[in-house]
């Protein structure tokens, strides 16, 4: 329990150790600092004691020495010998005392400098002593003489020097003592500082320790409550594990190292058809088809040697399980392992993939069908002289090919793949004016959603010539909102060539027609010109001759010439009707009919015929006046030709009524009429009722042709012997046509 707590609080433990170590170090340091301070202090006290004694000794020595001198001076100055001896005795005992004191001092000398000063002092004392002895000797022998006086001075001088050395020594000692004193003070101060720091550090550490201890205690308390939770949790987890195991969608089977089944969940029961009770403890191989059993045993051993979490079999191996009823089925197996107190357990999670395999099979066959239809599309599209395509305009208004068949290579020089990767390739070889047309058509199609059809050119990169193509596409709006076209792109270069050839031929034909027209006019002119001359001359003969036969001959010539002239005119008119466009203007029927009758007055018998005209052209009527003139010329000439002059009143009646849509024209005669068997043939070219009848057989044919050209109808009603009626309905060619 505690272990587990420490386990959880390893960083605190490390901190604790660090603090303990630090505290220990501080304690040691403190001890040494204190000790050093104590030593320094003791040393100072020592030195200080010594110095006091030494100074006292020096003082005593000084006093002793003074006493010696005093005794000498007294001994010298007293005259009484006893006194003298007493004085000298006192002097000697004082001297001896002084010697003892010097010896005491010498023991107390503590350094070399003091030693030097001490010896210097002893030297000066000897000098002084010698001077005194000398003085005392003189004193014994002589009186106060100048030499004696001088010796006294000398003795005094020596004494003072001696005194000086004593002063030096005491000064030195005082100085030394003061220095030692300072050192001891400093040392004590430092020690005090150290101790203050140590105390502060200790307080801080103690606080930290306290904090840590509080924490640790809190933790310990928490962990205790956790421990009770944990037991509950363990139980919950166990329930959860069992719940998971049972509710897992996969069959879960655990085997021990002997290959025996140790775990077998509910789903495993469902998959394999075994009850848990009957399968637990059985070998795992029981659940396998015969052929897998042997190799699996080896695999099991191998797996327990190096267990890992992985998928069994791998992608290329198909695994099968065997149900209790002996049926095999495909499975997927995932492997993992557990270490338990009872040893390693290999866990297999097993999924029955029968349904999935079926679905895969279905997918495969539908893919095959798709491939099949793709192949068909490819085959079909390759059979057209061009390409089929699917084209989309995306949200950036950029065109993109979703599909284009192989035929595009023949047209553009690029493969479908090259076009998919770069759409510009598709428009690369199109001349700018054609591209503009194409873009217009597409944007129009986007707006109207109507199919577009554009013919444009593509540069053939091999030959440098243009190919003509026709792009024809039907748009629809895809559920995603984009406009998509399905279309074809067909090479129409051949058709275009043919069209150009046709244009060329047509303009050639127009030119030829114009030439032919001129030819017909000039030929007819050249033919008619001499005829008119002949007619004029024949007129002279007819009017001026007095010979009845000559006049008759001239008349015959005239008639034949006029017939020839009419024929030439009709050929001319026929030729015109076929080639010349209809030119419309307002038709003045009255003028046309009067002029026609006037022109026909050369015909035999015209003078005997009564012309009756009834014209109602209150609705203005538009048509081709030249052609209408030709119609009337021929119809009236025909009516004159087939008139019956044996009757009292030959009549030709012309009725015209115009309307907004049509004009009704009838030309009626009371002539010889047409037999029913001829009626339908009279409009045939060069048809003549009999060899005796005059005319070329061209007139009525020409009338029929012109009426057709003017979008009208022509009808004939006739009864042999009582007359003929031609009825024409002509369209009012208003509105430009």
């Amino acid at each position, binding site marked *: 329990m505690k272990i587990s707590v420490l386990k959880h609080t390893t960083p605190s433990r490390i901190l604790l150790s660090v603090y303990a170590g630090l505290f220990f170090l501080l304690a040691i340091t403190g001890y040494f600092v204190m000790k050093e301070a104590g030593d320094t202090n003791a040393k100072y006290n020592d030195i200080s004691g010594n110095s006091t004694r030494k100074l006292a000794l020096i003082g005593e020595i000084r006093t002793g020495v003074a006493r010696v001198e005093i005794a000498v001076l007294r001994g010298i100055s007293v005259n009484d010998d006893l006194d003298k001896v007493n004085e000298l005795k006192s002097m000697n005992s004082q001297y001896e005392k002084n010697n003892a004191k010097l010896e005491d001092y010498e023991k107390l000398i503590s350094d070399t400098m003091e030693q030097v000063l001490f010896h210097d002092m002893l030297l000066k004392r000897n000098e002084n002593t010698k001077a005194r002895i000398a003085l005392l000797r003189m004193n014994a022998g002589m009186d106060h003489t100048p030499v004696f006086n001088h010796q006294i001075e000398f003795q005094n001088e020596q004494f003072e020097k001696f005194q000086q050395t004593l002063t030096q020594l005491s000064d030195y000692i005082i100085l030394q003592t003061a220095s030692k004193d300072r050192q001891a003070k400093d040392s004590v101060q430092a020690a005090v500082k150290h101790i203050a720091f140590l105390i502060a550090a200790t307080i801080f550490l103690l606080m930290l320790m306290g904090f840590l201890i509080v924490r640790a205690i809190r933790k310990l308390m928490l962990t205790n409550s956790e421990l009770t939770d944990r037991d509950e949790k363990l139980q919950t987890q166990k329930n959860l594990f069992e719940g998971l195991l049972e509710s897992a969608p996969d069959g879960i089977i655990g085997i021990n190292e002997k290959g025996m089944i140790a775990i077998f969940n509910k789903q495993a029961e469902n998959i394999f058809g075994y009850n848990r009770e009957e399968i637990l403890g059985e070998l795992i191989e029981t659940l396998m088809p015969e052929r897998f059993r042997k190799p699996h045993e080896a695999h099991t051993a191998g797996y327990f040697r190096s267990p890992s979490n992985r998928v069994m079999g791998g992608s290329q191996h198909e695994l099968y399980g065997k149900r209790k009823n002996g049926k095999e089925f495909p499975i997927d197996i995932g492997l993992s392992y557990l270490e338990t107190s009872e040893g390693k357990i290999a866990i297999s999670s097993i999924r029955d993939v029968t349904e999935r395999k079926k679905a895969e099979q279905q997918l495969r066959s539908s893919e095959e069908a798709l491939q099949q239809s793709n192949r068909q599309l490819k085959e079909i599209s390759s059979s057209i002289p061009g390409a089929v395509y699917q084209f989309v305009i995306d949200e950036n208004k950029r065109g993109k090919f979703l599909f284009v068949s192989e035929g595009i290579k023949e047209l553009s020089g690029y493969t479908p793949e090259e076009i998919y990767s770069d759409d510009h390739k598709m428009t690369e070889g199109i001349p700018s004016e054609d591209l503009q047309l194409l873009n217009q058509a597409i944007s129009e199609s986007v707006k109207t959603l109507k199919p577009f059809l554009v013919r444009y050119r593509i540069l053939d990169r091999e030959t440098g010539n243009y190919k003509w193509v026709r792009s024809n596409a039907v748009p629809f709006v895809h559920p995603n909102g984009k406009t998509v076209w399905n279309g074809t792109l067909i090479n129409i270069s051949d058709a275009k060539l043919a069209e150009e050839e046709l244009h060329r031929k047509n303009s050639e034909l127009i030119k030829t027609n114009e030439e032919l027209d001129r030819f017909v*006019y*000039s030929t*007819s*002119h050249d033919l*008619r*010109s001499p005829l*008119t*001359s002949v*007619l*004029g*001359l024949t*007129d*002279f003969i007819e*009017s001026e001759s007095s010979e009845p036969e000559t006049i008759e001959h001239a008349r015959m010539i005239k008639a034949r010439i006029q017939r020839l002239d009419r024929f030439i*005119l009709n050929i*001319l008119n026929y030729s015109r009707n076929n080639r010349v466009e209809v030119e419309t203007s307002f038709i003045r029927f009255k003028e046309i009919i009067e002029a026609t009758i*006037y022109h026909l*007055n050369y015909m035999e018998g015209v003078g005997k015929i009564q012309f009756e005209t009834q014209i109602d052209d209150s609705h203005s009527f538009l048509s081709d006046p*030249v052609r209408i003139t030709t119609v009337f010329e021929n119809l009236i000439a025909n009516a004159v030709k087939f008139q019956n002059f044996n009757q009292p009143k030959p009549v030709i009646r012309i009725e015209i009524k115009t309307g907004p849509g049509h004009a009704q024209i009838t030309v009626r005669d009371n002539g010889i009429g047409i037999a029913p068997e001829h009626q339908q043939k009279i409009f045939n070219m060069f048809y003549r009722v009999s060899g005796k009848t005059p005319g070329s057989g061209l007139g009525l044919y020409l009338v029929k042709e012109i009426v057709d050209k003017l979008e009208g109808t022509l009808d004939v009603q006739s009864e042999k012997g009582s007359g003929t009626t031609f009825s024409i309905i002509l369209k009012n060619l208003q509105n430009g046509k």
Partner: protein
Amino acid sequence: MKQDNKPIYKKVLLIDDNDVDCYITGRNIKKAGFASEVIVRESSEFALEYLESLASTPDELPEIIFLDILMPEHDGFHFLENYQKLPLAVIEKCVIIMLTSSLNPEDHDRSMKIKLVNKFINKPLTSDALRHLKDWLVEDFK
């Protein structure tokens, strides 16, 4: 009938390269009493020269000019173009009538677009045609 015998015009000019036609036309004009004098010029140039020479003596100018279209070298339209440049006295005096055997409607239309041309007649100019013309001229110009 009296009127027929007295020519209504003093002088007409025929411009036509075809001498037979000129003969027939001239004879018909005289026979019909249309004019007392018929002058023939066989080409556009000669006709223009003739007319220009009479600019100073307008009384001598023809009152009627019959103009053919199809003539060698210069056709009737050439004459019409240059006729416009003649002195005003000439243009004011003469009436131009196209007399041709051309049936080409283009010739007709082109002629009638020119203001100087008064009428378009197809050959032959028969006595009947002359009578019609006389009536038309009397109506329009008297």
